[in-house]
């Protein structure tokens, strides 16, 4: 029953990369939580993150047991389950920071929008694996994927969590472009977007407009997002070439960066380890993404190939948006840095993703 080839084909290199990023992440998190602060809660969060990572590892191992091809068969079930979670979050969800994003199950808080990303990728991979063609997808073939995206998007934006909603669209869009869309269709869709955007804009209420403008231009909110960006830039810039040294960051401490252990954690690394340290992390992430693409490329099963590409894309967008944001290149969105930012839902989701990649990689034989 157990296939020896699974062990032989196991992607130890990729596994090592995951461990490397996880270790770097814990190191930065430790510094972010410890520097200049002696309260007990610090260690609690660090321990919690270790527990999350351990739990994530176990989830990853479980996923390795299932053949990824089975995901193709049950994709709609997974999708429906996650949509159900999203609906229940709108009804029973816990209020935090003015939106309902979390669901309390037992004593664990989960964020269904995170799991939705994986579910959507699986479903899209399943749909595209049968409809893919070298000439590109036509309108008819895009209807089903469009519906698959629209349902979770609307639910997530209603939480409201515009950032995660857009991330979902970015991931879905990247996959769609990757499997190729007819040139004609592409032009028409872009055209429609250009025409309807101003109409939609004028239909929005003033406060909605101002929320979106602040999202795009944090400087409009100099006391909130704009302030974070200034402090983050000071932290990163002040790291210079070699950094101030581990636990020596002064900006990251205390009141300057309110989110320094979650979304703004890269600024801690950049401050303490300088350009050298942060480019090493960039390089590791880059290798990681190429590795993911390689897994997708080598997979002979069309579903597996698109699925691996989708997961890699998901990781890519998180890295790009997060790092872009802390450096003032991107809007301020609550997107965590994979395996580095503190946060259980994010760790678990990414580990699930890695598990799927490893899974595809080791079953790459006929």
């Amino acid at each position, binding site marked *: 029953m157990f296939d020896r080839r699974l062990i032989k084909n196991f992607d130890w290199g990729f596994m090592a990369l995951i461990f490397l990023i996880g270790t770097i992440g814990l190191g930065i998190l430790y510094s972010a939580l410890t520097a*200049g*602060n*002696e*309260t007990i809660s610090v260690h609690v969060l660090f321990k919690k993150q270790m527990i999350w990572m351990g739990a994530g590892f176990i989830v990853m191992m479980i996923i390795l047991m299932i053949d990824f091809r089975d995901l193709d068969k049950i994709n709609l079930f997974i999708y429906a389950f996650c949509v159900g979670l999203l609906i229940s979050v709108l009804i029973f969800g816990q*209020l935090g920071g*003015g939106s309902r994003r979390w669901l309390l199950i037992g004593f664990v808080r989960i964020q269904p929008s995170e799991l939705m990303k994986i579910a959507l990728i699986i479903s899209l991979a399943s749909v595209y*694996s*049968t409809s*893919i*063609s*070298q000439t590109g997808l036509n309108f008819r073939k895009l209807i089903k994927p469009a519906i698959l995206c629209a349902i979770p998007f609307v639910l997530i934006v209603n939480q409201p969590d515009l950032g995660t909603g857009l991330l979902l669209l970015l991931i879905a869009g990247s996959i769609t472009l*990757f499997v*190729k869309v007819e040139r004609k269709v592409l032009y028409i869709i872009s055209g429609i977007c250009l025409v309807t955007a101003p109409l939609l804009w004028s239909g929005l209420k003033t406060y909605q407009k101002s929320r979106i403008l602040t999202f795009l231009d944090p400087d409009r909110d*100099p*006391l909130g997002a*704009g*302030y974070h960006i*200034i*402090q983050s*830039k*000071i*932290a*990163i*810039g*002040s*790291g*210079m*070439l070699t950094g101030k040294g581990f636990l020596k960051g*002064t*900006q990251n401490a*205390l*009141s*300057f960066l309110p989110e320094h252990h979650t979304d703004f954690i890269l600024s801690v690394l*950049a*401050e303490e380890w*300088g*350009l050298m340290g*942060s*480019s090493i992390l*960039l390089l590791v*992430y*880059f290798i990681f*993404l*190429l590795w993911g*693409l390689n897994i*997708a*490329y080598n997979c*002979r*099963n*069309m*579903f597996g*190939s698109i699925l691996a*590409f989708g997961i890699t894309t998901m990781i*890519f967008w998180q890295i*790009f948006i997060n*790092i*872009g944001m802390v*450096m003032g*290149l991107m809007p301020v969105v609550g997107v965590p840095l994979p395996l580095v930012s503190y946060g259980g839902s994010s760790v678990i989701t990414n580990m699930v993703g890695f598990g799927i990649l490893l899974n595809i990689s080791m079953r790459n034989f006929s």
Partner: protein
Amino acid sequence: MTEFSKKQDRDWKKQRFIGASVCILFVFILLFFRLAYLQIIRGEEYRDLSKKNAVRLKSIKSSRGLIFDRNKKLLVDNRPSFNLKIVLEDAGEVKATIKKLGQFIAVPFQELMESIEQAGNGAVYNPITLKNDISRDQLAIVEAHKFDLPGIHIDIEPTRYYIYKKTAAHLLGYLGQINSKELKTEKYPNVKSGDSIGRYGIEKQFETYLQGKRGGRQVEVDSSGRIIKILRTIDPVAGFDLNLTLDLDLQQTAEKLLEDKAGAVVAIDPENGDILVLASNPSFDQNDFIGGISQKKWEALLFDPGKPMINKAIQAEYPPASTYKIITAMAALEEKHININTTAYCPGFLDYGNRIYRCWNKHGHGNISVIQAIEQSCDVFFYQAGIKVGVDKLAQYATGCGLGKKTGIVLENEKNGLIPTSAWKKKRYRESWQRGETLSIAIGQGYNLVTPLQMAVLIAAVGNGGTLYRPRIVKTIKDGHGLVIKKNEPEITGGLPASKETLDIVRNGLLKAVQGGRGTARRIRLKNIEIAGKTGTAQVYGIKKDDKRELKDLKYSLRDHAWFVCYAPAKNPVIAISVLVEHGEHGSSTAAPIARALIEQYIQLPLIKKILPE
């Protein structure tokens, strides 16, 4: 096509993946260049800023909405206060600095350190308030020595100011600092630790309107925390202003008349339920609560036997006494047990079920009709009426008149009062209703309890022809530019359970009580204004028949409460008043004169548009 087999397909696939890899490479190069730009090209500059920890966020307090009376007189204002603050990071040797500061402004070292300890750690860049509202002398000294006091600065912030101290204190309420528990709830998104929120009265009920929105400032500071440059500012938004229905002059008159007494006065505009006066005595100075009331002052308020922290107009419950005869008369007339001509004989007592129930007039009233019975407040007449109506029917009318339930005024802790029924007694005491108890109820003694506000709403309804209004305090809410944010329209909550004929009879009796030759309140008669009203004397302690003591010899706390409810002018009332004086003994001698003074003052004002056309 689920697998690529042909070479052509494989080439196509390769091309897609190369495209994707190039995209990723491009993005990573972009990120790397941005990093290099921030860390190398602008590195020096940012390192410099970080060394000084120079860019900070300063919060700017918004000023709370103002409160005006019905004639646009300002009741509650804001004044600037000088608040002494410290930023620990800039202070160098904190203890040495604080010691020096303590000597300069003559405040004990320990007191100043306490606020720092309370702030806890984790706030080295956030200003901690050392002392709010320092005096001008202290300000001058701190300013003169500011270079000896690194990290210390003074913020000028708006602080609440109650212009008329003790006036309408229970209605307006006061502020208190928000605590950490409240900060965690998301009820006050704009409030920061150290801020004050409404704790009582209108200040609390209208917190969301009054609060306003904080502003803030990004500033660059030097090494001792002094501002060098203001980078960006967001102006605070002032809270909304409230326009009350209260009449300041009348309120002050009422409070003056209550000055050496304990009790409450409520005056209502019968045409719309507007609260003109809501006074409760003893009162307290709201200004004492700003910046935290001292333990000593708080205990003094709490243990004062006059209970100054209780709003007696809505929170204190008293037996309605003879004012309740309005209800008994109404019920008996409506249920057709009596009519305008029915008379009863009052020999000064009623023998009922082997017990003697006395009339307040031991000589008796002789043959007496319902109008005369209201005028002279004959107990025997109402004993008999009460027996015919029965306790549960009486309760039904009382409830219909708005008693035994909240009036719905927008203040906290309003009491329900109590209207007993036989079922209530069974549940409460597990005993059946005794027929004799109905007699006490009929004249407003016994289990009955009402608040002065309930009686005011009731007498206003009698005056206006039967409409019960929800008491209104806040008329309009306006923003800083005078734009109306919210308008509260008068709200009808019901109608008296009485026909026009019944009401006319009751009103006639009430008119006679003041204007009639034998009226219990005839002493307060005015020359040119007709008043209709009812006195009441609520028993606190029953004097036995063989008790030799006279009322005036009784201890203060055992003396009866005095009631007076009225409206004027009797034909077309513009004001309805309810007065309760605790242990005031006689409604006619202590409560009624207060009402008269208010009527005199209010009706002589040219304000009454109904009498003097616009």
